[in-house]
């Protein structure tokens, strides 16, 4: 299910929210209808946490995470870190990392298995990403843009990349990530996909200006039409219980 929503007249939902299969983080200060749209879809299945990161509302661009873990920039305050740790389920590892490129959401794009990172990220950070998020890491650029987190968005089902990506690049990325990829836009022609929408395996939110065509592309590439949230979340629980036994 893809829904349209606006954060205080801004269409860039991906800037103010972070969404994964296990949790969701939203910025403070939005109108109630923003929260209600998110909570209506998500609250039954995963925790929805309201917080600031580094004192800003740009939670989507400063943090990166998947169902295994969450990475926070070094500018995150201790209270924020505490609050997030307490609100997230124990399975999710929360780590604050020291990285010069502190807008992690712009530099790293990941799903539950693979991550793409900015070519200039430190070796240490790359190792932490692989460790905490439990993913295989690739240094890549997308259509000549090094900000992989801004110009693409992919989940376990599929992904969208910036429209300037060539067909060869698209095929290469698709084979790296092992998910179907499509070049598209969001919010009526904006090529900054990562900032324009948030998505997980069963739901996606994009800006109010998104056209019907863009919305149908999002729904089909992320396979949101036949999605069953309960099944996806429970699959995770089942595998965890298995491992405890």
């Amino acid at each position, binding site marked *: 299910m893809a829904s349209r929503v606006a954060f*205080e*007249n801004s269409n860039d939902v991906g800037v103010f929210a972070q969404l994964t299969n296990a949790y969701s983080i939203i910025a403070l200060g939005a109108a109630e209808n923003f929260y209600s749209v998110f909570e209506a879809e998500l609250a039954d299945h995963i925790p929805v946490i309201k917080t600031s990161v580094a004192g800003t509302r740009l939670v989507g661009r400063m943090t990166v995470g998947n169902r295994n873990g969450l990475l926070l920039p070094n500018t995150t305050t201790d209270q924020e870190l505490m609050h997030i740790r307490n609100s997230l389920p124990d399975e999710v590892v929360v780590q604050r990392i020291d990285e010069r490129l502190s807008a992690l959401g712009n530099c790293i794009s990941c799903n539950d298995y693979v991550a793409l990172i900015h070519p200039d990220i430190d070796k240490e950070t790359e190792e932490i990403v692989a460790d905490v998020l439990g993913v295989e890491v690739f240094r890549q650029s997308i259509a000549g843009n090094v900000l992989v987190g801004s110009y693409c968005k992919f989940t376990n089902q599929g992904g969208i990349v910036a429209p300037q990506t060539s067909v060869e690049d698209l095929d290469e990325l698709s084979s790296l990530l092992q998910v179907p990829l499509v070049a598209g836009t969001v*919010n*009526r*022609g*904006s090529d900054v996909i990562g900032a324009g929408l948030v998505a997980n395996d069963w739901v996606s939110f994009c800006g*109010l*200006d998104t056209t019907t065509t863009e919305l149908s592309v999002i729904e089909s590439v992320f396979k949101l039409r036949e999605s069953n949230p309960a099944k996806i979340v429970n699959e995770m629980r089942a595998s965890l219980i298995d491992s405890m036994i």
Partner: protein
Amino acid sequence: MPKRKQQAEEDSPSVDEEQQYKSDSSSSTSDSDAPLPDSEESSDDEAGEAFQQVDVDFGFYCPQEKDFLGMRTLMQNYLDGQEWACSDMVEAIIAQGDSAGVGSVIKCGEEEDPIGVSTVLNLARHADATPLRQLRDFLLAAAGSTHRRRLEQAWAAPATGLIINERLVNSPPELSEPLQTSLFGEVQEAAEDEELSKEERQCFDLQQFLMVVRAYTDPSQQPDKAAGGSGVGAGSSKQQQQQKRKKAQALAQAQAEGVVHFLPEAECYQAAADWSFCFPAADRVAGEGELQPCRVVMLISSAAAATARTQLATLLQAAQDE
């Protein structure tokens, strides 16, 4: 419709203005070293000697779908930070550009992003549209008691157009004259265009124009409060009406004092306007003693607009000749 579009596209190369931005800092430094030889250098060098000339190309193009995001950013703060349906407004501007060829976006050099947008919307035609209703409420709330009735009257009149004229603050002043000429020329053409339906043609047969612009007020030169407070009397005799008109003109001039425009066309229009008022801009603050940002709303008849445009031309010519 394709013919009109092609015409608009053909128009743009001829309207392409090669603007020369003359720097006046080099002439004003009195005790500088020998002036630099004529060069195309476009930045100050280490010694601090100012550049001579920069050649920049600006183009006026028909508003198109690909300009949507840029135009939306320009229009986002039209209501001084309030949330409003600016996407719908931009859609209306694009639709009008497509169907009637009225309106332009200003682009700089090879850049795809618009730095300015200019168009005229018929208020009666779009009266029910959400963005215009929101704009009307916003302006009425900001208008003082004297101007509220005038604004309502102007808004309700059948042949009033809203001029949208937004551009980046540092756009060169030389853009204003060709922009205004082309805008009013397009309106005129649309009013006479055989290819458009009769209602559309009538929409562009506009008698008066409403304009909302950003400007600054100089706190040290506030207009006389007494002159501004005089209401409109209910006199019916000819003499009283003449007096009322004189008073209204004096009022308009009083309102225009103390307002510092950065858009040269706005200055000329306000001087020729039937009435105008200004109110402080809610989303921008300036320190004490600095120019205070404000919004100016004015109503100008189409005849007065034409005179204002010739005045604008002379003003800019004089400035260029300096």
